[in-house]
């Protein structure tokens, strides 16, 4: 059993606060991804869990014990670094067994554990090689092997895929997921790549400016972001934010985007939104996938509107379109056969079932 608990963790470098009070409960065997832009404190948080950074305030518990003053080697954790941090003068076998040899584990057991980990990672043939004879992906596997061999309570990954090229990154991502399914160890994984976060995590922790913005399952973050930051960070291309107003209309509310475009607010949201009638700083949030070409059968709360397209980007399976609404660039995704052309006027469909209303002052999704 190895749950990890962070209680109001604070990290201060001289006068700057890198981490401003984080509370997080990671349950046993869970795969948690800390994601956020650079400088949001995610790596610092991970390094505090590892014991590589001192904790300025708060408590970290691993398996129920406070580990604030426990040195890294006694925390029973293993870490995989961005640049792999393999020992260049040792073979793969020696790299993987270094920790066990320091602990004076009997030789046959070391042999067995290394071979076992090598089999899981499919690097059995590489055991006698030196790191410089390995490709990036193989080094990454060895780094993971070094972690697995130690059979730790917690795996920590610090942007492990950032040094790999795009194709290999996708491959290793799947690999990490497979390994976690085989080994089932509590894992904390840091990345700035929201796709990595979404695909790997049981739960994603979105961080910004030293704080947690939102914690949730990948799909929850996608469909019900709590803040403007999360709404904009998760999903690619990013969610559109269009300035708008709310107006009372017969039997409900109208969302006024500009003089031309206005949509009736879906009935189930009317009560929730009514209190914001007079707010002049509202943003209408809609993901590109919810701005499409007009379909023959409209579902409830899908409303057509017309815009002048500025740019089209054919992607093969879809075409990204860009237009200006209310002085904001808006992105939509239409099917390639919809006849989208730059400079032409196009009739589009907004799916308001998936809309978000955001208070731009507080950054909260309403």
């Amino acid at each position: 059993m190895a749950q990890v608990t962070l209680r109001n963790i604070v990290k201060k470098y001289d006068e700057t606060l890198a981490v401003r009070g984080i509370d997080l409960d990671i349950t046993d065997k869970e795969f948690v991804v800390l994601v956020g832009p650079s400088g949001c404190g995610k790596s610092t948080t991970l390094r505090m869990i590892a014991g590589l950074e001192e904790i300025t305030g708060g408590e970290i518990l691993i398996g129920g014990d406070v580990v604030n003053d426990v040195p890294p080697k006694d925390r029973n954790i293993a870490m995989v670094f961005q640049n792999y941090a393999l020992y260049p003068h040792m073979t793969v076998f020696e790299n993987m067994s270094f920790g066990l040899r320091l602990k004076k584990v009997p030789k046959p057991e070391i042999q067995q554990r290394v071979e076992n980990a090598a089999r899981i990672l499919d690097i059995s043939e590489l055991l006698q090689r030196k790191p410089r004879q390995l490709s990036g992906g193989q080094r990454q596997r060895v780094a993971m092997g070094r972690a697995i061999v130690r059979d730790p309570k917690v795996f920590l990954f610090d942007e492990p895929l950032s040094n790999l090229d795009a194709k290999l990154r996708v491959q290793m991502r799947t690999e990490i997921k497979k390994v976690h399914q085989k080994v089932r160890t509590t894992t904390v994984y840091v990345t700035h790549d929201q796709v990595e976060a979404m695909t790997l995590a049981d739960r994603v922790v979105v961080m910004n400016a030293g704080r947690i913005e939102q914690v949730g399952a990948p799909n929850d973050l996608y469909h019900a972001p709590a803040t403007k930051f999360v709404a904009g960070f998760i999903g690619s291309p990013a969610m559109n934010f269009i300035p708008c107003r709310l107006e009372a209309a017969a039997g409900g509310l109208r969302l006024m985007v500009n003089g031309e475009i206005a949509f009736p607010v879906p009935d189930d949201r009317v009560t929730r939104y009514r209190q914001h009638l007079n707010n002049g700083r509202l943003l209408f949030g809609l993901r590109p996938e919810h701005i499409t070409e007009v379909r023959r059968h409209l579902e409830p709360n899908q409303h057509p509107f017309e815009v002048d397209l500025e740019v089209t980007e054919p992607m093969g399976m879809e075409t990204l379109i860009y237009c200006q609404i209310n002085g904001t660039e808006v992105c939509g995704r239409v099917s390639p056969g919809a006849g989208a052309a730059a400079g032409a006027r196009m009739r589009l469909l907004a799916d308001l079932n998936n809309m978000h209303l955001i208070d731009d002052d507080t950054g909260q999704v309403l």
Partner: protein
Amino acid sequence: MAATAIAEGIQKVRHGSISKNRRRALFWSYVFLVIFAVFFLTPPLYMLITSLKSSAEIAAITNPWFVYHPTLENYAALLDQQVFLVFMRNSIVVSLCVVAITMLISVPAAFALARMKFWGSGVLATGVFLTYLVPESLLFIPLFKIFAFVHQYTGIELINHWWVLIVLYPTLSVPFATWIMIGYFASIPKEIDEAALIDGAGYIQMLTKIFIPVALPGIIAATIFAFTVSWADFLYPLAFTTSTDQLVLPVGIITTLIKGDVYNWGQIMAGSLLCAAPPLIVYAFLMDYYIAGLTAGATKG
């Protein structure tokens, strides 16, 4: 795809001009390398030629670049003299001890200065380098005074003993060796220590199991330097040792083979060549490591 084709085209054109430039650069580097090689190899060659001549032939007016009657009598005479063997022994013992002391001090010192961030570690590292910049010609008089002072208060006679050089040379070799080693240790990625820390290594294990093996080329470079300094230094032994049996090779050759204004050139040259041999042998054996050390950091480990 069209873009890559164009890019390839441009690259090919450039590639051609690079190889042309390269050929020109190679030509000129060979020209200058040959000039330097001739310049630096002429004196040793002349030494070798002279050492194979008898005194009579050296004095004779013949072609100085050719040996008409080669003889090993200079070498034989030199090795026959007990003092020369004493110089040799003194030099070897001093150099080996200095190398050992230098490495024992500078490797842990460099590790501490490169990796353990303690109060004043940055200033100390710079201080080590500044110490190296102070020339020995500036230091030998104060050191002499200190030795006299020590003698006066403790009765320990430090001047005119060959072993005092074992104390003196590290003042030159330790700062420089430490400075090189700081560079090597600093080039080892921080994550490697952190990985070792998580793997359960303490500072001592980190040093012996990770840092020393990884920075081995640098350590060998520092070793060669310490050896060269202690083998070839002239000023300190000249100033601090005077009795014939306390001398090391460089000073010994000069003081015993020049009698008044009589220069025994044949033996001086033979002695100098024998004196230059050990560093040459050390260099030859460690050259590969040394070059690898000098270019460390150029390639990723």
